[in-house]
């Protein structure tokens, strides 16, 4: 297991570096000079030059790249191009909201998605399977922002029981959860659709396994076959696959944060985009990609821990 863990982490490191490089390049080739953007349309040439120097933009691309990399190693994301404040502080403020939202999304998705998926698989080709499949396909078809808007319309405007916007006070649990309810429900419902489908197909695959046939052949009751042989094995696959949807989850959180004007990394990203604050944008992109890489790493390690076969591949 230790060798596997080290190997897996060693793969994650270059991925992160390449992610950083791609982001760095994209941000540099984006139109608009950061110094000009910050000073506005009426700045003199000299003041722009001075600011470029102050921001380190007069150095070579390579030097800037190494500087960014060095900063990141120390957890320093540089300063915002627009207001000059350290980006790390802004991230520290936003990150908890996004983590809260995504956690709620995935927990909700697992609690409702796994049982539905398992149930519809066991009852395949019956009416309840048919309904379950159509509903989950419907959930997959919902753009996250549209589901959010509909829920907001129903439960904030028509029946005003939840706040329309904001993230609430992070230190006040009740207020915080009150604000989290609708955004969390939006993301949770979308995740439920994904998890249901995945759980269903995972159970269906397990149903075809030899050991399930053997268990039946040796005369075990259907109940025992399902609980002792089938579920144990397919739940493993489901746990592992939840990591695959990290991307969906994080992408969805961006849309949810925008709909509900909820503080968080997605809101930060779109705000930076509107103001052309490329350094903030770069920082948020890197965090997003790192989160995905991290979740995948954790998933792989968990899977390796539960299923020894994975380790020796």
């Amino acid at each position, binding site marked *: 297991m230790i060798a596997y863990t080290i190997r897996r982490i060693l793969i994650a490191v270059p*991925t992160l570096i*390449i*992610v950083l490089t*791609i*982001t760095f390049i*994209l941000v540099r*080739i*984006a*139109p608009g000079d950061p110094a000009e953007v910050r000073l506005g349309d009426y700045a003199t040439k000299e003041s722009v030059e001075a600011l470029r120097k102050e921001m380190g933009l007069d150095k070579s691309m390579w030097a800037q790249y190494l500087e960014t990399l060095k900063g990141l190693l120390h957890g320093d994301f540089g300063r915002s191009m627009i207001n000059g404040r350290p980006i790390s502080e802004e991230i520290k403020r936003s990150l908890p909201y996004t983590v809260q939202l995504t956690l709620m999304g995935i927990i909700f998705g697992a609690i409702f998605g796994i049982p539905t998926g398992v149930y519809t698989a066991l009852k395949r080709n019956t009416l309840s399977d048919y309904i379950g*499949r*159509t509903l989950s*396909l*419907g959930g*997959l*078809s*919902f*753009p*996250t*922002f*549209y589901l959010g*808007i*509909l829920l*907001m*319309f129903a439960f904030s*405007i028509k029946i005003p029981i939840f706040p329309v916007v904001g993230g609430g006070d992070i230190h006040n649990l009740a207020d915080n959860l009150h604000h989290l309810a609708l955004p969390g429900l939006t993301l949770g419902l979308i995740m439920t659709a994904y998890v249901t489908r995945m759980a269903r197909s995972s159970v269906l695959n397990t149903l*075809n396994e030899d050991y399930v046939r053997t268990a039946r052949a040796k005369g075990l009751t259907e109940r025992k076959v399902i609980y002792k042989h089938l579920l144990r094995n397919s739940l493993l696959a489901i746990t592992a696959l939840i990591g695959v949807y990290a*991307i*969906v989850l*994080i*992408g969805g959180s*961006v*849309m949810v944060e*925008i*709909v509900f004007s909820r503080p968080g990394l997605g809101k930060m*990203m*779109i705000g930076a*985009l*509107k103001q052309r604050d490329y350094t903030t*944008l770069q920082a948020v*992109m890197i965090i*997003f*990609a790192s989160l*995905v*890489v991290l979740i*995948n790493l954790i998933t792989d390690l968990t899977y390796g821990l539960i299923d020894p076969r994975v380790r020796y591949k």
Partner: protein
Amino acid sequence: MKKNGKHRKILTTFLKNRTSLIGACISVAMIFIAIFAPWISPIDPLKQNVYYRLTPPERGHLLGTDEYGRDVLSRIFTGTRISFFVGIVSVILGMVIGTGMGMLAGYAGGKVETALMRTLDIMMAFPDEVFGVMVMIVLGTGVENVIIAITVLMIPRFARMGHAPTLALKEQDYIAAAKSIGASDSRVLMRHVLPNIFGDILVMSTLWLGTAIRLEASLSFLGVGVPPPTPTLGSMVRAGVDFMGVAPWVSVFAGLAILVSIFGFNLLGDGLRDITDPKLYAR
């Protein structure tokens, strides 16, 4: 003759599979709207009328009007046209480029394969919405750029679809046989590998068409898609949010058009996958 029989079998299974049939009907209806939007729109989608700001659905404006008094139904038709155009073009481009890259990587093996597939894997470490936004910032808004952004997002998916089966197929005897009688690499790929994976790829592209339409809508919802005054479904939803309390119809109907389009393709693709999956015949 034998080929005809196989086709007929697929066709009858298709007709029996209600899911894909309903999906096909929805998709065809939406494609019809997309193609004929300029002719079936009751009013010019760009025409503003201050006397009819935010009027609820009524005769003359079946789905109401928006904050500039523009007809929501006509705007939805044009928005659907844009969505489908962007979706279909980017899926086709993504399919050609992505599948090609995946097949090449699988067939060539070695360093080419590692470099190509690793790069694509890393692209997939970015959530779609995040990477899409990034590409749009670099390119700037506009229809062509939205197409490029979504194509870029489609390439890794198709590349994976093309890569894995090629790896397995290239070990097959008939590929060795084709090579031994002097078939060129491109001939092997086009005539012996591609036909084997094309069916699966076509099925997946139906599903990803839904994804592409969702991405187009998300990008224009975020304000980095096709710029105004061209109506897009995503930007209509966005604009309507500000008037949700007084005029919910703008957002609700525009979003419904997105939902129905995606749902149609998902039903169709899902049904097709069931039909083409040989494991299901055995069951």
